[in-house]
């Protein structure tokens, strides 16, 4: 009987201490989301300016730039998958990976080879566990991405894109990342990075026509310099969105874990009380029974 109470006490103690951890992680995630969202917003002027410039150049001059032209036949595609480094974020990484699997499936059914580029330790271990190869992986700061990483990723993808198929190059690049819609809604999504479809939805508020620019040096060189930056900026934007999503997912997961722990503590407390009461009752009835036995003799 006494053993039962001790078991419940231990369970309550351990659940209380894990609840503290959940609580702390929830608070950390909450405080970082704000920062992550500010960074998403802070990267916007750059993205807008670069989008505007790229659409200006590509709409004015009839340049056949390798980055904007569709290749006739696509035989190999690269996919960049953004997941988190750490777990404890609910289904965040799992749903991004599921989205990626779906994309792999589609690409393969179209007869394309798939090369995987990964961001985040979760994606790395997912691939390692299944014994599947990947080209390159970046880990270390998925919840606070740096532009430097985006630049490295951009350079790696770009060099792979510019190679010939025979040398292992790819003809298409997709990015799988988790879009941050709101604190409660984050959706895994796919975006085609290359060949570029210059989307200018972000600059629609400027109704005026794009001005006729002079270029310095030549338009081709300007485009050469602009496009890699545009790609970096889009990768960086995806990374920032993914980071905000990761933190939001972690906050939610930790909140529900904390709530569950509270529930468990409540349940164990009740069970402990019942056990204690049962013990007292038994002790009493033993005493009464003993007294009765003495009286009877």
């Amino acid at each position, binding site marked *: 009987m006494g053993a039962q109470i001790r078991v419940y006490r231990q369970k309550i103690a351990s659940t209380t201490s894990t609840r503290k951890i959940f609580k702390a992680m929830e608070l950390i995630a909450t405080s970082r989301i704000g920062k992550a969202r500010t*960074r998403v917003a*802070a*990267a916007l*002027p*750059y993205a807008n*300016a*670069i989008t*505007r*410039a790229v659409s*200006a*150049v590509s709409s004015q001059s009839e340049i056949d730039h390798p980055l904007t032209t569709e290749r006739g036949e696509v035989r190999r595609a690269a996919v960049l998958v953004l997941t988190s480094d750490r777990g404890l974020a609910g289904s965040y990484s799992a749903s991004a990976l599921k989205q990626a699997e779906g994309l792999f499936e589609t690409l393969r059914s179209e007869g394309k080879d798939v090369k995987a580029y990964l961001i985040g330790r979760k994606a790395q271990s997912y691939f390692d566990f299944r014994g599947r190869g990947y080209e390159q992986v970046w880990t270390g700061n998925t919840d606070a991405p*740096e*532009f430097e990483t*985006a*630049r490295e990723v951009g350079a790696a993808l770009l060099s792979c894109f510019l190679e010939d198929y025979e040398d292992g190059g790819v003809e298409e690049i997709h990015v799988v990342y988790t879009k941050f819609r709101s604190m409660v809604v984050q959706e895994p999504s796919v975006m085609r990075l290359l060949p570029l479809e210059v989307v200018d939805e972000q600059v629609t508020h400027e109704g005026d026509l794009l*001005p*006729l*620019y*002079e*270029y*310095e*040096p030549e338009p081709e*060189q*300007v485009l050469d*310099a*602009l496009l890699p*930056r545009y790609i*970096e*900026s889009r990768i*960086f934007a995806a990374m920032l969105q993914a980071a905000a999503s990761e933190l939001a997912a972690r906050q939610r997961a930790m909140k529900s874990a904390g709530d569950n722990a509270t529930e468990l503590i409540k349940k164990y407390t009740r069970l402990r009380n019942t056990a204690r009461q049962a013990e007292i009752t038994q002790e009493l009835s033993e005493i009464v029974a003993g007294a009765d036995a003495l009286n009877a003799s």
Partner: protein
Amino acid sequence: MATHGELEVEIVAADHFVWSGAARTVNARTANGQIGILPGHAPILAILEAGELSVEPVNGERLVVGVDGGFFSVDSNRVVIVADNARVGGSVTPESA
């Protein structure tokens, strides 16, 4: 909003907003050399070289911004400077960026 005869300058870096305001002139270094932009300049889109660019605001001190590459566009007195890394008041080194 910049009034007539002033430039409306906006400087942005990859991950943050740097500076914006009205200015009299902007001096920048492009692949072809130094370029000075005064109000009424023709629309131009140019590649920035790594180095310093200076902005002379309508009010206040001359502003020197160190950049390590990027581009800038000018159209109807609106100058947008887009730098990979930008730092007000000096040159950009990889460590400080």
